[in-house]
């Protein structure tokens, strides 16, 4: 297996230009929404609003304003996290979702049958159906470009290097240095998803944040969907056992009672 590759997104230098969104759309030939006539969000300068089957990159605008001159903009270019332990890959019933030699997670569109289990399994709300293909789609970390030695379209297009592409080990070192630098300047910077011992075994697309993860639309403790399997399955088995016993005991007791009363006695 080749070295694990991924993204380090430094949100402090994102300027919200959405060049990454455009580059992603162009390279991956993703269709426009609603025939290109976009509905405005009405409550934000961000009109993409979310990641889905035709938006594999989304620059999230977080507008924190108490008053006209009292506030700040936080911006984060969001994308599939290419989790080391990926919930989507775990539940996919067709084998369409695979882990590549770059330790990234890719949906094979010719195998996916659009059951949508992966959408509900992803703790980050990354995946959705592409209405053109009828299959689940998301960022591939430009698997086709990686195979020929190119970097992904989004990071290539990013004018501020907010999105940095590279080997995960090297990106982690770079990210830690940047956090130390920001902290020395009094900025409360934290890494999200960088630790291999953290949730989901670490994220191959990790972030530098300056506020709580929830503010950026990220879950604090993302989990694999199968975390519930043993407990939910066990309680179902217990419930089946109780109902089975009630059915058997009830039916036999009544049969005995009827036999005792000289009833039909057959049941």
């Amino acid at each position, binding site marked *: 297996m080749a070295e694990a590759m991924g993204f380090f997104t430094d949100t402090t230098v994102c300027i919200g230009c959405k060049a990454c969104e455009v580059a992603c759309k162009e390279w991956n030939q993703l269709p426009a929404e609603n025939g290109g006539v976009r509905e405005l969000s009405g*409550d934000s300068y961000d009109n993409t*609003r*979310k990641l889905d089957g035709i938006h594999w990159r989304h620059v999230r605008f977080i507008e924190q304003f108490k008053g006209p001159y009292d506030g700040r903009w936080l911006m984060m270019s969001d994308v599939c996290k290419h989790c080391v332990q990926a*919930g989507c890959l*775990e*539940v*996919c*019933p*067709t*084998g369409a979702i695979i882990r590549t030699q770059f330790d990234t997670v890719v949906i094979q569109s*010719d*195998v*996916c*049958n659009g*059951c*949508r*289990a992966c*959408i*509900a*399994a*992803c*703790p*980050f*709300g990354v995946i*959705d*159906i592409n209405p053109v*293909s*009828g*299959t689940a789609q998301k960022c591939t970390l430009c698997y086709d470009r990686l195979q020929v030695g190119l970097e992904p379209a989004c990071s290539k297009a990013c004018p501020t290097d907010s999105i940095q592409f590279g080997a995960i080990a090297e990106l982690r070192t770079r990210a830690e240095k940047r956090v130390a630098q920001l902290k020395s300047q009094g900025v409360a910077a934290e890494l999200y998803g960088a630790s291999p011992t953290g949730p989901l075994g670490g994220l191959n697309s990790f972030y530098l944040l300056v506020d709580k993860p*929830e503010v950026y*639309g*990220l*879950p*604090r403790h*993302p989990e694999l*969907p*199968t975390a*519930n*399997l043993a407990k*939910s399955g066990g*309680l*179902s088995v*217990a*419930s*089946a056992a109780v*109902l*089975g016993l*009630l*059915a*058997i005991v*009830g*039916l*036999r007791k*009544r*049969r005995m009672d*009827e036999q005792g009363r000289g*009833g*039909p006695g*057959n*049941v």
Partner: protein
Amino acid sequence: MSDTFFSGAPHWTWFIVLYFFVGGIAGGASFLAAVLDWFGGPEDRPVARSGYNVAAVGAIVSGALLTIDLGRPLRFWHMLFQSANLPAVMFKGWSPISFGAWAILAFGLFSVLAAVGGMAEEGRLHNPTLRAVGGAVHGGLAKLVGAGAGLLGIFIAGYTGVLLSVTNRPIWADGPWLGALFLASGVSTGTAALILLGRRRGATEQALARLSAFDTKALVVELLVLVLFVASLGSLNKVWVSFWGLILLVGVVAFGILAPLWLHLQRRPVASAARLVLLGGFLLRLATIFASEGIERYRVTAGM
């Protein structure tokens, strides 16, 4: 805020609601039919045969609903075989949707065999091949086939809830009780379906009374599990302050569980109670699925 609020809705809507409802009835009816076959007497056979018929039709309808719901329905077989590596089997024991696909297939086979056996017993088969197949399913083999259909049936009734729990969606993944709840509801609705069908298929009053008595117990179990399910959600229960909460409280609890329990205890006509149980079973799936589907993650994330 629960971490589940950051996930995306899978757009599992009407076809899935109908599948969960029909699959629950089919699974519950098949389970009860097998119990009657193994622990009942000859006079229970008409009800057991009806149970297998309900299971067979339900399994076929379930498979059709699941297939129609896919984004690419013609690729339904990708859940069973590796499309790029035929004839290698596609199976993930830890993924409910994967083992569910195989379970539905097996349930369909067993319940259709059990139903054909029952129809042959009644002399209702005119096709020579079906008559030969049905004729072969009798005696000990019929009991074994029935046991297979019953066990797979109870699995089908419950795994749908486990499938919802094994996600990262609000409500579904926030507690471990959905599998048990859907299983209990599947058994109560399956019994209700048999009560309604049994009368037409020559079931005796005593057999119907026994079904009614069992349905009462199944409803009590369902109510208990529903209380535990709601309790397990904790502070998340504010999501029920909505139209779907009203459906859960009035449609499921009041009309679908308490009203039929009261009718059973009053020894009122069992058919009325059975119809209410079916209504409650449908509304339970509807409320559970749509309440989660309807949570608009971006509004929540933004605190709006």
